[in-house]
């Protein structure tokens, strides 16, 4: 595929932005201003030769003026007219549902269906056709299934906000309830079981192409608060990533996304979806209106120039969905993302496939710091009447920021997958080794090759290189540790490949009862008793709470172990051990399976 950078630019006429209604007091003034903002966004896009997807909101469907605006822009500029499930609140909605709730995935399933019918029905009444795109901050699997059943014209949907979970919740005074970590960062076809899980094939294809709400910085949004650092100019301003009227970070972000085409067969993608509340004429506390408007105008100009140079292809959402099905379908996605904000030279490798999502941190020797077992195909119903009213994150087995990672404050271990290297009683962890990596494709697999690192273990110096293999369609990750050199001839270092894990969606521990740890033919039922079992062969953890079986294996003769945690360290550890000398290699595999 030729280098193809695709942009989805989405605007929504909101009329009553949920977080602006209180400020302006509601009423006509706010509506007029909101329409003006929508018109401004549309004008700036069109002036730069860009077409948009107009995601009509329920409130906007009751304004003939806005409906006519949309029809006119569709005719003149080829904008797609879609339908958002954001922007529900309006007089008509409030009179019928008598609630302040506005997030579709949080309503009861019964109400969700009624709301979807109301909104889609009103759309058809206004336009005489059914929409081909829809979306929300999150669109759950049951809602997607209902929409596909009743309104099969829908091909594309905004379906999640990347890593906008507990981190973002904290940044908003613990009062913004988009708890949705664990999903893909770039477009995917959701499986029928769970929106966050990419479909494996036609058998679990939900019949829509999902796009993220924004294209986000894959380091800053993982380490940071989850919402300042993305292709949203006013979010960048809110994050204070500017000086005066200069914000080169925004353009670096766009350009790094373009560069990721190198790792994905020439395909790269950006999505910009700025709600009108961000261009409020009163400005915001961190930026005056003039800067809010300038930043949007500059972003449109940047995309417009890329298009003029033949480096960008702007598409409506449904057009993109057709393209995606033709060109990407169920393919995995891999990014080697570099720090463009903090000046650290750190890089993260992100991988998303129907089997897993994971992140490797080159600042920690390629340690796995995030792991989501998509292979479990976990069904997690959400909304009122379920046990996850607001929270729709896909659970992790490893999340080094929420659950301690390599370093813990006092005792015990945190979640991470890494290795230790020891010799003569001196041991060191690969997490202590900062390095860099290159990513290439080879024989149907992604190969992440790290620069060698040096271990000084007493009198011995050993150079070790790590390589990680991700095969398309596989539920395994292969790790190779190569002992390139030892300063003492014939010396062998002891490499312990380990994974410390638990399960959850937040920083708080979850009950570990019911988890089984298996080493060889020995089984431990988790009882927080700090036990270790050693054997030969494969080590496994069965985590019924997330229907996952995770195992590690190397060659048949290798020692393996499982470690049970304790109350002050409620984790488990799987490990494999091999002694290796100069020129020798330790290959091991991490495997994910569904466990009922």
């Amino acid at each position, binding site marked *: 595929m030729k280098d193809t950078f695709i942009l989805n630019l989405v605007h929504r006429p909101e009329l009553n932005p949920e977080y602006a209604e209180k*400020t302006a007091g509601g009423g006509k003034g706010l509506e007029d201003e909101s329409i003006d903002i929508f018109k401004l966004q549309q004008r700036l896009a069109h002036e730069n030769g860009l077409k948009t997807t107009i995601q009509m909101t329920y409130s906007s469907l009751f304004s003939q003026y806005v409906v006519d605006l949309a029809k006119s822009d569709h005719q003149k500029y080829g904008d797609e007219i879609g339908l958002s499930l954001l922007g529900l609140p309006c007089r008509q909605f409030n009179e019928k549902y008598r609630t302040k709730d506005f997030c579709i995935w949080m309503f009861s399933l019964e109400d969700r269906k009624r709301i979807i019918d109301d909104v889609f029905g009103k759309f058809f009444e206004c336009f005489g056709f059914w929409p081909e795109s829809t979306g929300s901050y999150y669109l759950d699997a049951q809602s997607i299934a209902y929409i596909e059943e009743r309104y099969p014209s829908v091909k594309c949907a905004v379906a999640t906000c990347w890593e906008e979970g507990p981190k973002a919740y904290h940044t908003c005074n613990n009062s913004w309830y988009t708890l949705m970590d664990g999903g893909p960062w770039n477009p995917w076809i959701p499986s029928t079981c769970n929106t966050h899980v990419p479909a494996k094939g036609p058998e679990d294809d939900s019949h829509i192409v999902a796009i993220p709400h924004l294209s986000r910085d894959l380091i800053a949004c993982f380490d940071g608060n989850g919402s300042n650092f993305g292709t949203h100019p006013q979010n960048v301003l809110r994050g*204070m990533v500017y*000086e005066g009227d200069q914000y080169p970070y925004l353009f670096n972000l766009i*350009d790094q996304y373009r*560069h990721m085409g190198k790792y994905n067969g020439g395909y790269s993608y950006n999505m910009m979806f700025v709600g009108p509340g961000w261009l409020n004429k009163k400005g*915001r*506390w961190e930026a005056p209106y003039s800067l809010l408007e300038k930043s949007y105008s500059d972003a449109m100009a940047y995309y417009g120039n890329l298009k003029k140079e033949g480096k960008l292809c702007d598409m409506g959402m449904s057009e993109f969905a057709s393209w995606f099905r033709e060109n990407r379908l169920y393919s995995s996605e891999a990014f080697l993302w570099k720090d463009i904000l903090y*000046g*650290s030279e750190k890089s993260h490798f992100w991988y998303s496939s129907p089997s897993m999502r994971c992140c490797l941190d080159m600042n920690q020797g390629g340690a796995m710091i995030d792991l989501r077992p998509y292979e479990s195909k976990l069904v997690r119903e959400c909304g009122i009447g379920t046990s996850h009213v607001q929270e729709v994150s896909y659970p992790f087995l490893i999340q080094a920021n929420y659950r301690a990672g390599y370093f813990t404050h006092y005792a015990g271990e945190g979640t991470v997958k890494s290795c230790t290297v020891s010799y003569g009683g001196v041991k060191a962890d690969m997490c202590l080794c900062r390095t860099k990596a290159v990513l290439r494709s080879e024989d149907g697999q992604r190969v992440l090759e790290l620069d060698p690192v040096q271990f000084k273990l007493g009198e011995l110096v050993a150079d070790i290189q790590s390589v990680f293999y991700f095969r398309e369609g596989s539920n395994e990750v292969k790790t190779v540790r190569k002992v390139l050199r030892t300063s003492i001839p014939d010396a062998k270092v002891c490499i312990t490949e380990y994974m410390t894990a638990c399960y959850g969606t937040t920083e708080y521990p979850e009950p570990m009862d019911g988890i089984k740890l298996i080493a060889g033919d020995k089984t431990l039922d988790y009882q927080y008793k700090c036990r270790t079992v050693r054997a030969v062969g494969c080590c496994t953890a069965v985590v019924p709470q997330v229907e996952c079986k995770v195992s590690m294996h190397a060659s048949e003769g290798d020692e393996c172990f499982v470690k049970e945690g304790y109350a002050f360290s409620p984790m488990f550890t799987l490990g494999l051990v091999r002694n290796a000398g100069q020129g020798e290699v330790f290959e091991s595999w991490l495997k994910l399976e569904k466990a009922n």
Partner: protein
Amino acid sequence: MRDIDIDMFYDEDKKEYYCIRCCYHGSEEDVLQKNQMARFRYKSMLKRFDFDDDGQKERK
């Protein structure tokens, strides 16, 4: 004053801003100065990068 996304309130009598979640209090000048602390981590904030096969390079 807009109260969206604001973590501090203004005491007109003492002419100072104060946080309702911690003990911070200070003048407008101090608040603006402390806002800069949000930026201290952003060492690449004003750099512009090019991305090519050789990696990420700062534009001069």
